[in-house]
Structure formats: C-alpha cells, structure tokens
C-alpha cells in the first residue's frame, strides 16, 4: 500500500475563512500522511490540525513533523485535541536552532500573554525532537529532513516507503537573486529532498508579477515552483501555501499559469492543494 496524503490546511501566513476561499480553504498548513500500516503522520500544525485532531483516535503515538515555527505552522497545536488527553503519546519533530531547544521555542507561543496556559500544563506525554541529520523511520516510513531557504530555521521533508515518495516544502524560496537555470542541482535549496519524488507539495505564494516586490520573504512565485519541480523531476507538483489575499479564482489563475509553464515532461500537470484533497502517492 502506498502513502496517502490528506490536506487539512494549505493557506499561507494567515487563516483566511470566507466566501472567497471556500474551495481551496482558509486553514493554515497541515497535511495528514497515512502510512501503509494505517498510522498517521502529521506535517505541520497550522489551524488545519484542529479538525484533524478531532478525527484522531488514541491508538498509538502521534508524530507531528514541523517544517518551522512561524505561527501559521504551529498555531493549531494549541487546539490539537490529543494535546489535551493524558493518554496521548505525542512526538513533535522540528528544526534545530543554534541557541534554544525546540520545546523552548514552541513554549513561547504556548504561554501568556499569547495563550492562557503554559506548555507544561498540557496533560499529554509530549517529547520534542530535533530532526536527526540522518534518515530516520517512523512506522516504516523513511524520513529525511533538510534545511531549506526561508527566514529562520526551516525544513523540507521527504517521506518514502515501498517505492512511493512525497516531498513537503511549503515555505521555500529556492533561489535568491540568481537564476535557477545557472545552478547545478546541488546548489538549489531543497533539491535533494524533492528529487524524483512522486508528489511534491511546494510553496506557490506569489504570482510572477507579485514576486519582485517580495524577494527575500522566503516564498516562491508560480514560476519558481514549476521550475523547481522540473529541475527535481517530480511526478506531480501540488501548489501549496496560498497567499491569504488569494481568492479561489486567483488560485485557479495560478494553476492555469503553472500549467502553461509546465513543459510536458510529465503527463500530470500541476494542481493546487485544497482542503479535503486526498493524494494517493503511487
């Protein structure tokens, strides 16, 4: 059985509920991964994790893999139901930082005045892990994490099992001030994480016209997303981290543009992530 991914949130930066975002959704990043044995891994803890948490049963350890600690990727953690169950064994994985532990950094968002309770008040059995340097396994899924270009310590993840693979790089500016075409693959941030995967969920926050005034913000234009996916020779590109100002119609236009830019190396043209989307990784 291959991996299966379900999108619970794919909006970037800020939760964006409303009639203009009904189709793609307004919850911030959270992706559920079903392993071949039926267990679940969770990528990021944006507001989408709240609904996922309500759907999770206490049937074993829960693993949450955080790409980074910007609020849109952790703000749902405080409302993640398993956090508040004493029987939960929760493992939170995230990027190392030179100075503070992962627990110390998450505790900042989990304490007054940002939140009424302290992290230590949660009844669940929580263990924080800096991601290891080497490949590790959870429930038979091989996981690699590498630092990618985005302000602050930020990871991209690659998950692989039984010949199927998925990469998740939701916040990423793969090149800064240089042309991707001029670089060898080893010089493109995140390339090794995404290379040859069946499915790539990748940042596509900006249109090509928006990007020039947002260089260095840590996000991709649709052209970056397509070019990165092509350089990595992925099977399918799924556009992710939709700008909070992007309406459903606006996301449709980015998908059309991505399809125009796609060079036909794959029969599968890019699509945009939407809440409720299920992806069977071949």
């Amino acid at each position, binding site marked *: 059985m291959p991996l299966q991914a379900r999108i619970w949130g794919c909006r970037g930066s800020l939760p964006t509920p409303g009639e203009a975002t009904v189709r793609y959704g307004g919850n911030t990043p959270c992706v559920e991964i079903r392993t071949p044995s039926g267990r679940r891994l969770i990528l990021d803890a944006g507001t989408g994790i709240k609904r996922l948490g309500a759907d999770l049963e206490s049937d074993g350890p829960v693993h949450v893999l955080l790409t980074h600690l910007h609020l849109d990727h952790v703000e749902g953690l405080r409302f993640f139901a398993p956090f508040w169950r004493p029987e939960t064994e929760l493992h939170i994985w995230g990027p190392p930082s*030179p100075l503070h532990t992962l627990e110390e950094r998450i505790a900042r968002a989990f304490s007054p005045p940002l939140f009424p309770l302290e992290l230590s008040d949660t009844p669940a059995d929580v263990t924080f892990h800096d991601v290891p340097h080497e490949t590790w396994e959870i429930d038979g899924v091989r996981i690699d994490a590498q630092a990618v270009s985005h302000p602050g310590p930020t990871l991209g993840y690659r998950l692989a099992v039984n010949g199927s693979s998925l990469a998740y790089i939701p916040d990423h500016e793969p090149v800064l001030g240089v042309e991707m075409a001029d670089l060898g693959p080893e010089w*493109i941030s995140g390339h*090794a994480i995404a290379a040859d995967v069946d499915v790539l969920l990748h940042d596509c926050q900006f249109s090509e016209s928006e990007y020039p005034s947002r260089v260095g913000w840590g996000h991709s234009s649709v052209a970056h997303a397509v070019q990165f996916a092509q350089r990595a020779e992925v099977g399918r590109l799924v556009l992710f981290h939709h700008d909070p100002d992007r309406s459903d119609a606006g996301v449709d236009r980015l998908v059309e543009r991505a399809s125009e830019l796609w060079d036909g190396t794959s029969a599968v043209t890019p699509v945009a992530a939407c809440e409720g989307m299920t992806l069977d990784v071949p």
Partner: protein
Amino acid sequence: MARIEPLGFRSVEGRPQKHLALILARELASQLATATFVADARGELVFYNEPAEEILGRTFAEAGAMPAGGWASQFRLEGLDGAPLPMEEMPAAVALMERRPAHGKIWMTGLDGQRRLVSITAAPLFASPTDFVGVIALFWQEPTMDAD
C-alpha cells in the same frame, strides 16, 4: 565512529546537496560589489563572484571549483616583504583550519599573471555552534605604485 555531517550537508538517497548556509553565502556573494569567494568545509573553492574575477584574473565559469590544494597553488601569494606566504598564514586558510576570523594584506598574483596588493578578511561559516560548513572571504585591491 562515523562522522555525522551537519544538517543539509549530505546526500539524500544518493543525491548531493550543498549546505544551505553555503548556498546562501554564494547567493549573497553573487549580489555583492565586493570581491568575495566561498570555500566549503574541505577547503574546496566553490564560488567566487564577478568582482573577484577582476582580481583573480579568470572567471569562475572558466576556472570552476578548485580543491583546497589547487586554489592555494594557482594564485602566487607573498607577504608585504615579497617573501612567499605560507599557506597556513593566508587569512582564508586561517579561517578554514583554525575556524576563526582572520585579516591580512598580501601580494597576490592572479591567474592573469598580474600582481596585486589585496586586503583579505575571512570568516568561518558555522550553521550551528558545532556545524562548520565553510569559509567566506572578502578582499579588496589596495592602491599601490606596483599594482595595475
């Protein structure tokens, strides 16, 4: 004991990847008007920018990446007294081998055969307190009667 490479400085399923700090250092260098070169943790010269090409006497595209022993021998280096400069006294070598910042003024004969007086400031790049990933060096050509 197996060496644990720093995060990002390793292959993923056989696919090579430069450390993100090196990637960003290269991108920074490519935007600077100051001559800059970047070497990795092994001392391989992995990039120098256009202003550096003016001083080193050859484009990076022509020269390509050079192993540690290679670039040190390709540029003839002398102290201010004109005596050959031992490799270990070069600011970039100090930053690489002793992992501390270093500054110096030296004579350098580039790949174009021109001898120039240059000031070099080199700094080690640490991605974390224990993850040494390379060196960045900035250099300036100093005005001199002998220099072009």
